[in-house]
């Protein structure tokens, strides 16, 4: 994978689409991360993409998935992960938006309702991040929320950030599947075992960078096994990022054939750079 593929896919407005069509926040943010990982964080392509991202930030500080969607959502975390000097003076507004976000089930009203209607109190388990406002927290947006706030804390050491990240990490650890990995966030629906996915296992390991390895031994073992046999390029990239974040040497594995989407191409570049010693998610 090389950056020329991404450069060729940049839209006239400076952003990137998922495959074709209008620009969207997620593929644009991931493409910018790929350029940063490839050492081209000052190129004209990068600067045009950064301008698109700055120009689509919403008044409340967050980002919508697409410019025509009228809500700020989880993609705010992705925007905050691009290199620190990309977003200019409105970065702090985005950090404030993210610090305040959480899953709907963590509100005191909802927890009280749960304990009254289901006869059980559930006050532990941490507070994750939701995909969309006023909905429950799930694994992937929680991973990106943690990564984004930790990066933000280097520039804006807001008092709330450490506790918010700690609670989000608790959420992830509480939502593991019985096989040691993670899926979208439901490890035990209706009391039955639910299998993990390689891509979400990789994302969680990346987000839990710094967690004592003994807490993650089963997950790391699972990821090391999955990366050898994974047939998805995107999932393999996440597994690599997760393993490298914990200092593990990557086993020999073949690079799966991709489907050519911008996020997949971007992640492959970022993962290769991480394997070579530069992990832009953790910078």
């Amino acid at each position: 994978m090389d950056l020329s593929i991404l450069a060729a896919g940049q839209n006239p407005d400076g952003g990137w689409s998922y495959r074709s069509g209008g620009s969207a926040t997620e593929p644009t943010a991931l493409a910018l991360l790929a350029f940063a990982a490839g050492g081209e964080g000052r190129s004209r392509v990068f600067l045009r993409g950064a301008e698109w991202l700055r120009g689509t930030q919403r008044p409340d500080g967050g980002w919508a998935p697409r410019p025509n969607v009228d809500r700020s959502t989880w993609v705010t975390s992705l925007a905050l992960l691009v290199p620190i000097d990309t977003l200019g003076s409105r970065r702090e507004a985005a950090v404030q938006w993210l610090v305040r976000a959480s899953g709907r089930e963590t509100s005191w009203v909802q927890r009280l309702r749960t304990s009254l209607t289901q006869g059980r109190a559930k006050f532990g388990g941490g507070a994750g991040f939701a995909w969309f406002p006023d909905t429950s927290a799930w694994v992937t947006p929680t991973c990106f929320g943690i990564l984004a706030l930790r990066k933000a804390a280097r520039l804006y050491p807001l008092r709330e950030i450490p506790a918010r990240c700690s609670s989000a990490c608790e959420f992830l650890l509480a939502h593991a599947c019985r096989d040691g990995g993670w899926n979208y966030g439901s490890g035990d629906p209706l009391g039955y075992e639910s299998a993990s996915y390689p891509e979400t296992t990789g994302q969680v390991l990346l987000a839990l960078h710094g967690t004592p390895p003994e807490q993650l031994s089963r997950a790391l073992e699972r990821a090391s096994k999955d990366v050898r046999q994974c047939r998805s390029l995107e999932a393999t990239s996440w597994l690599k990022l997760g393993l490298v974040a914990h200092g593990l040497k990557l086993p020999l594995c073949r690079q799966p054939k991709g489907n050519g989407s911008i996020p997949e191409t971007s992640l492959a570049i970022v993962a290769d750079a991480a394997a070579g010693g530069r992990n832009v998610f953790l910078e």
Partner: protein
Amino acid sequence: MLAGCSARQHHTPAQVSVVRAPGYDQTLYQTVRRMLDEHRLAIKGKRVVLKPNLVEFDSFTTINTHPLLVHAAFEAFRALGAADVRIAEGPGHRRITLDLAEEAGYFATFRSFDNAFTDLNLDEVTPVDILRPKSKLRSLYLPITVRDCDLLVSMPKMKTHHWAGATLSMKNLFGVVPGGVYGWPKNILHWAGIHESIADLYSLFPRTFAIVDGIIGMEGNGPIQGAPKHAGVLIAGGDLAAVDATCCRIMGIDPAKVTYLQLAAGGRVSPVDIQQIGESLHSVRADFALLPSFAPLRLSS
């Protein structure tokens, strides 16, 4: 003239086909073509979107709409003169849709599957108001691929569902709600009320058709962790509520007790409101095992 998926047209009475289909083999192509001919759909020059059910892949069970059935429908609509036939889905758990489609056998069945496929989760979207909502939703962002098509063909797997009772052609519409906006899963629908959301989505797509994969469905703890159930049928029709009611009767479920059906269609799914073509319900009835909490939904003999 078909004026786009947003134009309401009426089907009175609702015509539903029940056809025996013992397996996933080449006879499906002729079977599906005959079903479409029976319904006299005006397809020439139209844009058709086939929406199968892709959720998770497990080689030991039958979660997803079988790719051979989808291919049979694809070829049938093309043969009927459709200007464009696309396959489109927005899975609710896993984000990497093409990987899921490959695991489920779609790439092996279709030549250039990715050229014919749209990931509805990542499609461009447009806001749509819900005019008479049953749920707490007032509007949804929906993919332009399904808003702009002339006919949306819901192709679910015939399954029980651990929250809705059954998941059929109407619940299959959850897959058109874009994860790129609302996430994986599309939790906004759960918070708004599952039954109510199904009814609201049904109201947003009046120009629809359904072909239900009931050859091997799922019983018990559907829609993922249940057991395969051979019913040996395909069900098709232009009114999704009538199709779902018919499927329920085949599965041994009383549609009068399925909340989403009552919300969406009220009394319009009783046997007298449905013109049945093909096999009698009695001859194909194959009671699907139900979770204990859904025992009250059992249809009496």
